[in-house]
């Protein structure tokens, strides 16, 4: 558009999408510079939820750190617990009994389902359709009931231990899990019919914030965001840990279903499809789980050997990598947690240039970030 010499001067507006905002998935502050409705610059400002988890890790023992990992991503608490347990076990070379590994996988996949349900629900709520959010919460209540059965808690579970899990599944747990899976699987199709392919919803999401595959890798995107850009990389299949090699499931990849590969719609559909794959894994796990002990013998005063290790696991929001340095004492020497949401924020400023304010909300929701993971 050529500017006319006698046009009225316009000014860019700086708006603060403040830490308190219904759509920023936590206390995220985005400083928008807009020209009317179009955003020219969106700078994220984080740190409102910084709790110095890494510094705390240097003062507590390995076993005492488990409840802190709950708060790392409270919607995928089991995944973070197990990530910490696996990281320490890799550093110290501890052998975990097979039943414990199966239980860990079962709770991790259940938590993946409930985390993706919240991602789905809050995303559609951000887009203006309030109803699917409540349906997602309804299904999540059933998962919470299952978790309450197995560890007594509904949100921050503190379930894994170094060397296994804290308690065996009570009688009836596996049957109830199977009931939940039978109830839940047709619901995914119901939600797809209700909202996923709704014309308005697709128009809001398709071709918005396209992230090409090479950029996704370079900017450090992981998890569903990376797979939404067409890169078929899933840690559970490509760098398998625990008992994942025993399960048969697909890697869900975005394919430009309704727009371009790597747009918001692809990332959203990857999460929906991942719920289906999690149901598949759960069915196999519940069928195959062996009997046995659930906790290995780990000394009470636990001192891993001197060394450094890096372990990463597939959490619902990306890969959670734990870089552990041990100097032979009861406390970790250095503990660095690399979370999917934190590194995903790298691409935020680049991808939001030229979008509208309404699209900023769509982008934040499609990357499914959560602030405790970003701020630690």
């Amino acid at each position: 558009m050529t500017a006319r010499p006698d046009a009225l001067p316009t000014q860019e507006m700086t708006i603060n999408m403040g830490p308190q905002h219904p759509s920023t998935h936590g206390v995220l502050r985005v400083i928008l510079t807009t020209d009317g409705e179009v955003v020219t610059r969106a700078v994220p400002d984080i740190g409102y939820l910084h709790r110095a988890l890494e510094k705390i890790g240097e003062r507590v023992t390995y076993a005492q750190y488990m409840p802190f990992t709950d708060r790392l991503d409270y919607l995928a608490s089991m995944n973070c617990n197990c990530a910490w347990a696996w990281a320490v076990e890799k550093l110290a070379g501890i052998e975990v009994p097979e039943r414990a590994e199966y239980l860990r996988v079962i709770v991790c996949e259940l938590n993946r389902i409930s985390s993706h349900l919240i991602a789905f629900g809050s995303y559609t709520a951000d887009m203006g359709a309030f109803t699917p959010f409540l349906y997602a919460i309804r299904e999540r209540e059933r998962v919470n009931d299952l978790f309450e059965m197995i560890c007594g808690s509904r949100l921050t579970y503190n379930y894994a231990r170094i060397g296994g899990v804290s308690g065996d599944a009570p009688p009836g747990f596996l049957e109830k899990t199977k009931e939940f899976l039978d109830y839940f699987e047709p619901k995914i199709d119901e939600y797809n019919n209700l909202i996923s392919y709704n014309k308005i919803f697709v128009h809001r999401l398709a071709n918005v914030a396209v992230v090409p595959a090479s950029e996704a890798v370079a900017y450090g995107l992981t998890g569903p965001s990376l797979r939404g850009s067409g890169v078929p990389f899933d840690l559970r299949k490509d760098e398998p840990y625990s008992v994942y090699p025993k399960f048969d499931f697909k890697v869900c990849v975005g394919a430009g279903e309704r727009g371009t590969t790597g747009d918001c719609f692809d990332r959203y559909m990857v999460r929906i499809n991942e719920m289906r794959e999690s149901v598949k894994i759960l069915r196999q796990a519940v069928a195959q789980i062996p009997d046995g002990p659930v906790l290995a013998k780990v000394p009470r005063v636990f001192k891993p050997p001197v060394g450094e290790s890096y372990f990463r696991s597939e959490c619902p929001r990306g890969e959670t990598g734990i870089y552990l340095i041990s100097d032979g004492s009861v406390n970790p020497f250095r503990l660095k947690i690399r979370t999917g949401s934190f590194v995903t924020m790298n691409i935020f400023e680049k991808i939001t240039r030229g979008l509208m304010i309404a699209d900023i909300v769509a982008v934040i929701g499609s990357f499914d970030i959560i602030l405790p993971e970003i701020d630690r």
Partner: protein
Amino acid sequence: MEAQAIFDMLKGKFGDGVVELQREGFSPAFVVVAPAEIKAIARFLRDDPSLAFDSLMCLSGVDYKERFAVAYHLFSLEHRHAIGLKAMLPRENPSLPTVDDVWPAANFQEREAFDLYGIVFEGSKDLRRILLPEDWEGHPLRKDYKYPDFYHGIKV
């Protein structure tokens, strides 16, 4: 590719820039490099077709009581191998060139290392405090960090 092979390749190309290979007790193995060479080595690791480390998994600052270090964990999606890079830095004025033009994923993580350790990344496109408020004094993750008593008049 094995860690030893990668180390030999780097040593052959950069000579004194590559210091040693830390293998026993380190998973993945670390190639310790001179801080000044980090950008050239990073670019080589990313662009060489047999190495193709296109994914920076993790960038962390470390405080080994006598000195600082920056640890890079790299991964190649094509060849499915991983390696670590480490650059040792002195405790006074720790600084080294940035790698955020090689892997843009490094930007936020370098800012975090700067924020919590005080390691300066030269040439970074944006080096500000990220997790702590802009006017915070000190670098908390250092082993000799003293907790402040007051912040803006509020008892901490």
